[in-house]
């Protein structure tokens, strides 16, 4: 088990050092476009949760949710892959595979993301409270809405440090200066 984990972490570290499609993250503007694309994908996840909540479990709702989910994945997967390569795995690799600068950058990204998710959780609490007060005691939220809400929250929690890190990343020094 430990050997498998070791091999996986090593191969992950190697992949992060490869210059895959470097033009996509060569400049700060392009890295910020990638970060914005990931935020857009996350936003679609939240829209999904709202649609599931407002429309309830209907056929139309299922089609809207499925379409949004497909669009979200089409944007999310390439954006996250490229952001991981751009940041050289600062938020993805094991801590012992990072140097002191990278560990510091990871800490800052996680701290900023933590603050953001705290605000999101507070807003959600307010939304639930206001909705509960408006609808009365007997009101329930569908399981589908709760599932999409959980997915959106989990994905935001998972990927926000990477987005923050990619957004903040300064232009790296040239690879070969000899």
């Amino acid at each position, binding site marked *: 088990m430990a050997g498998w984990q070791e091999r996986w972490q090593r191969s992950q570290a190697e992949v992060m050092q490869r210059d895959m499609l470097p033009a996509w993250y060569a400049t700060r503007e392009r890295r910020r476009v990638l970060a914005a694309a990931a935020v857009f994908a996350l936003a679609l996840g939240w829209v999904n949760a709202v649609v599931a909540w407002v429309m309830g479990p209907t056929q139309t709702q299922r089609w809207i949710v499925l379409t949004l989910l497909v669009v979200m994945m089409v944007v999310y997967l390439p954006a996250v892959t490229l952001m991981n390569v751009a940041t*050289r795995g600062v938020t993805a690799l094991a801590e012992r595979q*990072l*140097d*002191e*600068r*990278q560990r510091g950058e990871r800490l800052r990204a996680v701290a900023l993301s933590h603050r953001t998710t705290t605000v999101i959780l507070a807003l959600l609490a307010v939304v639930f409270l206001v909705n509960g007060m408006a609808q009365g005691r007997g009101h329930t939220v569908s399981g589908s809405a709760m599932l999409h809400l959980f997915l959106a929250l989990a994905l935001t929690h998972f990927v926000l440090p990477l987005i923050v890190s990619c957004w903040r990343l*300064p232009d*790296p*020094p*040239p*690879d*070969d*200066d*000899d």
Partner: protein
Amino acid sequence: MSAEEVYNRIPMLRAERGISRKDLATALGVHYQTVGYLERGEYSPSLYLALRIAEYFEVPMEVVFSLKPFPRLGSEVK
């Protein structure tokens, strides 16, 4: 600009000794981009890393790092 700016002579020492950025990074056990950020003054090293850099170049720490900009070569010659 950071208020805690630390100036260094890593590019000069590296050029003088013909060491590439990647070689220095490997010797210090850091990512090669970290050496680049150090050289550009965009990252200030920990005391441990600063000591290791000085040890690598076999010079006292104050030869590599300073809190004030290093004088330009020849500027002290009248």
